[in-house]
């Protein structure tokens, strides 16, 4: 069962900052190379990184370098190459924060041609 609401998934093309900030999980919109277009409040608080600092930087290499491996960034790149991405898995963040197990969902919305990284602290 995904932690991402169906309502959000159905309307990603219209998901602006207020919508993203209202979610109780991390919502990160990235381009095909991984450059952050939108970094919501939850993710900002979880990672301790200001949205203004994060946006415009590469999520996988500059903002969350712990994701720079085949398990995470590799899945993203594979999905982008195929034009279809929907992968959910568990991960642990250890970069400049206490060990934090999280659930992750990587998603590409075909309708709006946008890419998303959703993150929620594991229960």
């Amino acid at each position, binding site marked *: 069962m995904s932690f991402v609401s169906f309502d959000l998934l159905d309307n990603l093309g219209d998901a602006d900052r207020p919508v993203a900030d209202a979610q109780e999980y991390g919502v990160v919109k990235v381009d095909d190379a991984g450059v952050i277009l939108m970094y919501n409040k939850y993710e900002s608080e979880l990672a301790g990184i200001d949205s203004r600092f994060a946006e415009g930087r590469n999520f996988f*290499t500059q903002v969350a*370098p712990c994701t720079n491996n085949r*398990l995470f960034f590799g899945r993203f790149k594979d999905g982008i190459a195929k034009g279809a991405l929907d992968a959910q*898995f*568990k991960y*642990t963040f*250890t*970069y*400049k924060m206490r*060990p934090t197990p999280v659930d992750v969902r990587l998603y590409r919305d075909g309708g709006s041609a946008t890419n998303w990284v959703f993150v929620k602290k594991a229960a």
Partner: protein
Amino acid sequence: MVLSSEPSTEGLKALYERLVQTLGDSSDGRDRTAVDEALARVQGCLDATLRQGGLPRDLRERFSFSVWLPRILQAADDAGVDDEPGRSNLARSLGERLIKLHTLADLMGEEEDLPDLRDHLVFAYVEAKSEWQQLNGIVNYGMARGRAPSAETLARAVLVSTIIADLDDLFGTENIDVLTDYLFAPLPNAHELTLRRHAFSPA
């Protein structure tokens, strides 16, 4: 172990020469000048930061064991390192890094030593980031393979990343971005760097 696909030194040289020829006229002297200017600028910024920080005294304080002991104990608690040997191992492994940074700061305290001190801080940064990448691999590949990481590994990953955070403060965003970009794919980047150096070298 030598990988079967690893080219010999001579083979690499020949490969570079072919690639440089392929690059052809795109690598002219103006590019080299721009690279030199950019490098001088960011190194100048780092040197200024180091001077303003009152190094080496600042470095000694920043990485003193008295500053780090509470962090080590907190990381051990957060990760669940409860046993005394585990906590001692953690303190010892971090202590070795701290002693190294202290010793460098002691030995390179003169103004004319600054370029060397800067380089050694870069070594320390790359070392810390490389170690953290390995620990991150152990943690997350372990999880993916159903082998949960040890509490000590988790605590060590957090502490090494905290050292990185402290060094981040010294280096500044521009230098950090460049080093991070390099470490994103060190082998291809090292090859490309060498290739560019060959391309820029006068005939």
